[in-house]
């Protein structure tokens, strides 16, 4: 009786290796983005209590924290892979480039939120703090090598955003959106968790590297338990990225949420979910290591989901008059393109690189578009229907020009970031031999041209309906829009650097999991 706890302690001690009790310099350096973000979050909470002038201090801290996280991430690019906390987390270029992306997302959302919140009378410090915590969740998620860590990070990210979605608490649509998102998101998390449990049962580990090692060793790849677990995990992610048939929640949530938060969700959360999706797919041995039949099965799931997501997103977007809803459906459509990226990743030269580039481009252009919408929204988050955009080019030329650039970019027309993203993606798809899904994808983007250009028609080719007062200007929102315009065009005209980055992360990061996993297993 009394022996058992002792034995347990002994085995536990055996698994802890001494090198884990110390941290190398590299490992500590790898944590610096987290130090910026967490330090920022804690000091923001303190500042909110201590200073009467928190209205300026908290956003300033927020800007510092996100800019610091982005800056430190770029500084660490050549650090090499750093495993942290008993191999539960990995900081490599893959993690770092996505961290930069999340930081951009949070930073731009902050800039476009200030004026918006004033107008809505919702200026509360919690808004920024929750956003930063959500960002920390994203960073954890993308660096996680462990299904449970992924789950915890997913919850941190999601719960913060559930609150933000319902932030306009006097508004019915906002409340509805929050509840809907919370209930369905909770269900999806549960599905993911259940899938993780089954994977643990099939492979004996929750560590992605060890799962991959087990699959590669042929120990689990074909079992029913594994397939079921893998499918459930994939469904969990398909929900998070809102792909068909799990896309129903998205338009309502995007419409109900405050406009800046919608921008944050379409960029940050989508990028984090896709980045983690990529890690997990690589960890499941997709494209390399899985049994033939299972491989084909997962391939088909993704193929059908990608095709239908593109078609449905684009077709329904055609009929939308509310711009937030339209962008929500367009976001579903872009999810479809990104799924093509996951589908073809292992078989193409660029690996999962196109996904990074696409997410980067999408983040830049979508943040810009939502910054414009936030700046234009009148009190009560209203005034962002198509006819509200009429004659915008005369009332607010910068906003109209920005919106035009972002919409051209979303439609994938050169010389914009969206075009660079699309051609790298389609080129990879052709390289992987997936001609037909590429043809569907390009035809869908031809459809999408219609609804993107319709906004341009209103902005540039129609006169304003009435002299409705403009929502007031904010130099911060203008600065954000300007920066996004510059980035969109810069990535479009000179894409070679980001394409090299995209290729490099897919070459080092994703296979690294496999190699390290194999080493760990031996």
């Amino acid at each position, binding site marked *: 009786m009394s022996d058992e706890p002792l034995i347990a302690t002994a085995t536990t001690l055996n698994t802890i290796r001494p090198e884990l009790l110390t941290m190398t310099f590299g490992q500590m350096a790898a944590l610096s983005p987290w130090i910026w973000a967490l330090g920022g979050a804690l000091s923001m909470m303190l500042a909110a209590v201590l200073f009467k002038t928190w209205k300026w201090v908290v956003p300033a801290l927020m800007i510092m924290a996100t800019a610091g996280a982005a800056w430190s991430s770029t500084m660490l690019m050549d650090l090499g892979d750093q495993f942290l906390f008993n191999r539960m987390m990995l900081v490599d270029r893959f993690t770092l480039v996505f961290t930069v992306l999340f930081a951009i997302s949070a930073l731009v959302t902050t800039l476009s939120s200030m004026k918006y919140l004033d107008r809505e009378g919702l200026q509360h410090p919690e808004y920024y703090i929750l956003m930063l915590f959500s960002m920390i969740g994203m960073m954890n998620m993308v660096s996680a090598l462990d299904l449970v860590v992924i789950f915890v990070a997913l919850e941190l990210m999601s719960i913060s955003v559930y609150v933000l979605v319902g932030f306009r608490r006097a508004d019915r649509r906002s409340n509805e959106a929050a509840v809907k998102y919370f209930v369905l998101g909770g269900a999806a998390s549960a599905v993911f968790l259940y899938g993780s449990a089954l994977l643990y049962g099939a492979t004996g580990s929750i560590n992605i590297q060890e799962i991959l090692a087990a699959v590669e060793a042929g120990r689990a790849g074909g079992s029913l338990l594994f397939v079921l677990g893998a499918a459930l995990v994939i469904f969990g992610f398909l929900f998070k990225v809102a792909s068909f048939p799990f896309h129903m929640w998205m338009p309502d949530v995007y419409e109900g949420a405050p406009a800046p938060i919608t921008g944050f969700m379409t960029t940050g959360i989508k990028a984090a979910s896709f980045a983690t999706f990529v890690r997990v797919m690589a960890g499941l041995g997709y494209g390399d290591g899985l049994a033939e039949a299972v491989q084909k099965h997962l391939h088909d799931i993704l193929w059908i989901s990608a095709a239908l997501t593109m078609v449905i997103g684009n077709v329904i977007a055609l009929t939308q008059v509310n711009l937030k809803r339209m962008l929500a459906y367009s976001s579903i459509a872009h999810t479809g393109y990104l799924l093509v990226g996951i589908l073809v990743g292992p078989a193409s030269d660029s690996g999962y690189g196109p996904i990074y580039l696409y997410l980067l481009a999408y983040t830049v252009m979508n943040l810009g578009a939502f910054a414009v919408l936030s700046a234009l929204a009148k009190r009560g988050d209203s005034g962002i229907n198509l006819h509200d955009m009429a004659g915008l080019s005369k009332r607010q030329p910068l906003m109209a020009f920005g919106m035009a650039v972002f919409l051209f970019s979303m439609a994938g027309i050169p*010389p914009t970031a969206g075009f660079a993203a699309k051609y790298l993606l389609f080129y990879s798809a*052709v390289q992987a031999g997936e001609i037909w899904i*590429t043809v569907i994808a390009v*035809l869908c983007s031809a459809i999408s041209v219609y609804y993107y250009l319709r906004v341009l028609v209103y902005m540039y*080719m129609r006169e304003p309906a009435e002299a409705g007062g403009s929502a007031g200007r904010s130099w911060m929102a203008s600065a954000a829009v300007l920066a996004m315009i510059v980035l969109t065009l810069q990535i479009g005209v000179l894409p*070679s650097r980001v394409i090299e980055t995209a290729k490099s992360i897919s070459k080092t990061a994703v296979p690294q999991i496999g190699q390290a996993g194999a080493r760990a297993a031996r």
Partner: protein
Amino acid sequence: MAWLDTRLLTVLTFFPLAWGVVGLMLPSGKDGKAVKAWSLVGTLLTFWISWILLGKFNGGTADFQFTENLPWIPGLGINYNLGVDGLSIWLIMLTTFLMPIVVLGAFTAVEERVKEFFFLLLALETGMLGAFVTLDAFLFYVFWEFMLIPMYFLIGIWGGKDRIYAAMKFFIYTMVGSLLMLVALFYLMHQHQLQFGSYSAAITDLYKLKLAGDGWFSVQGLLFLAFALAFAIKVPLFPLHTWLPDAHVQAPTAGSVVLAGVLLKMGGYGFLRFAFPLFPQAVAQYQMVFMALGAIAIVYGAWVAMVQPDIKKLVAYSSVSHMGYVVIGLFSLNTVGVTGSIYQMLNHGISTGALFLLVGMIYERRHTREISDFGGITKVMPLFAVAFLIVTLSSVALPGTNGFIGEFLILLGTWKTSQWTAVVAGTGVIFGAVYMLWMFQRVMFGPLKNPENEKLKDLSLREALVLLPLLVMAVWMGIKPNLFFNKMDASVAAFLERSVVKSAANDQAPSAPSQKAAPVPGASAKSKTSKI
């Protein structure tokens, strides 16, 4: 100026855009006079740069000249690769020649948002020149798509009553075609990687690819269809022409002139530069299909033009008809036909451009384009009548005008390849004369019934200056075609070498029996006699 020699094409291409960006910063002032003058000077300078290019261009070789090659996206083998040869040099000259005319012609027509209008015109010029000078298939696509943006705004903002519908239709039509071309292009780039082990999108590299070409839906066949769809929409070829009348009629005069003068030529140029040399076997396979479509376009365009009550719409349908000649000339695949086609592209740019300008001038005065509102205009606008007459005659291909040379060569070339196509196309010449002259008669002659027409002013000095270069060119090109052919001959021969002889050789070598007796088009073309 050695620097200019090595970077001449870059300077030529991006000069208008850079000039336009500076123009955006000028003060608008009253009527935006400063901006108008600025743009005119810019397009004239561009024309001058292209003269330098023409002067240094060597017509004796088929090689690409003034080449520039800088890495752009090395990760995918995409380079900033420029060069000109005899196929593109005259289209470049056409573009730079038309632009000052367009800008000068738009001086009074544009009242609103003057700065943006002229900026878009200059940006459009950069897009068009870029598409003509690039030797990288991907870069070509970039410019090809980029051109849509300024044109979309030109139609959509400054166009007529249904401008939004027309702009949308124009954009989406072109987009659908070109996206499939993009996929085909990626396939080619991927094939290059498989066959040669390196990434490349340079067309000279892609020409070397070996692709299975037997049958209608072979690899070559499908790729050819993807490329041909994009180009056929742009040309536009029957039955993909429906965007054109809308776009032409709704566009402002400047937009119509550029659209007819240069943008439609992109389609023909695309066939010349890409579709033919890349897929010779598929071209042989589909030759008759496209010749038939071209012949239908000629006759159909002419018939529809005949019944139009609106002058601008009539001119638009005449474009469909005239571009049909270009297509059959190209697909005749012999020296005479191809040379005639390229020549006809230039002619069409000049004469249809002039027609749109004339229609625009009369529209500015009367705010109507209905043929029935006019009649007897000769009496009040004699100068206008003379100009209109010369352009009309050039458009109906009267001997001594440019149109005659082009159409005659095309019919000659077509006769060698397919006699019945030549016969059908020949009737198109007659119908062409019918609708143009009938329209001219109804507008210009007869009694001056409508009292509103009595007060019409004749051409102003500016308008005369706009039309004069076009009229001179229309006659000059009819009298001295050899000046133009001299610079093209070598390139046309090389083009046919790539597009025809190879396919004939391939057809006959191992897989001859599987070809179901497709007429070998090279047979007639090989006798490269015809010194015109």
